[in-house]
C-alpha cells in the first residue's frame, strides 16, 4: 500500500515527529511504500539544518534525511507554514533578502496542493500531531 504521512508538530517539543518516523520505518519494513511525508504547522521545524541536539539524544532531522535518501521519500515542507516560522531554502532566502537559508538536505519546500494530492493518490493517510 501507499502510505501518506503528515507531521504537524515540531521536533523534540512533541513526540509526533518521532512516532511518525518509527511508523514510516515499520511501513517500509513491511513492504509498503511511503512516497511522501508532508510537514505542516510546527512540523516544518523538523527540516531546519541548524538543530544541534545533545550528543546522547536522537537527531530527528538527520534521521528523516537518511530515511528519505535510503527509501526515496519526498519530504515536503509547506511553504506558507515554513515562511511564518523561519524555514527557508536557498531560493526563498535570496528572494526574501535573507543572508541565510536553513532547509536541511532531503527536504523541499512546496505548497499545500502536495498534501491534497497525497490524500487523492495514496491508499492511507496518517497524521501525527498534538
Amino acid at each position, binding site marked *: *500500500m501507499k*502510505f501518506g504521512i503528515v507531521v*504537524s508538530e515540531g521536533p523534540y517539543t512533541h*513526540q*509526533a515527529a518521532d*512516532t511518525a518516523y*518509527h*511508523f514510516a*520505518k*515499520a*511501513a517500509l*519494513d*513491511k513492504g*509498503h511504500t511511503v512516497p511522501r511525508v508532508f510537514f505542516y504547522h510546527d512540523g516544518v521545524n523538523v527540516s531546519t539544518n541548524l538543530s544541534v541536539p545533545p550528543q546522547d539524544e536522537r537527531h530527528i532531522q538527520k534521521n528523516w534525511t537518511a530515511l528519505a535518501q535510503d527509501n526515496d521519500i519526498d519530504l515536503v515542507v509547506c511553504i506558507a507554514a515554513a515562511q511564518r516560522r523561519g524555514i527557508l531554502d536557498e531560493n526563498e532566502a535570496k528572494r526574501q533578502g535573507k543572508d541565510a537559508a536553513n532547509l536541511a538536505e532531503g527536504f523541499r519546500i512546496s505548497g499545500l496542493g502536495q498534501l491534497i494530492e497525497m490524500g487523492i493518490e495514496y*491508499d*492511507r*493517510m*496518517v*497524521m*501525527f*500531531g*498534538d
Partner: protein
Amino acid sequence: MSTLHTVNKSPFGDGALKSCLEHCKPGDGVLLIEDGVYGALSGSTIAADVTARSADVAFYRLDGDSKARGLPADKLLGDVKAVGYDGFVDLVAEFDCTQSWL
C-alpha cells in the same frame, strides 16, 4: 467502512479520548499512542468509559509508549491490546481509513 482512530494525549488533562469514544462506530479500532497510552490505565477515572466501548470497538496501545512511561501490564486494561510500530502499520492497512484525534 471502518476507521482506525488514534489518540495521542492523556485522557486526564485532555478531552480527545472522550470525544473519540463518543464518535467511533461499532467495528472501529482505537489505537492509543504517545501520551494516549495512559488511557489504558485500569482503576483510573477513564477506565469505565474505555471498558464500556470494548464490546463493539477494538482497543490497542503502542507497547513502546507504554513501557517508556513505566506502565506495567498488570496496571493496564486487558481489553487494550499491545502492538508495536509494525502492528500499528497493520492496523492502518486493515481499517479503511485513519482518523487522528489531535
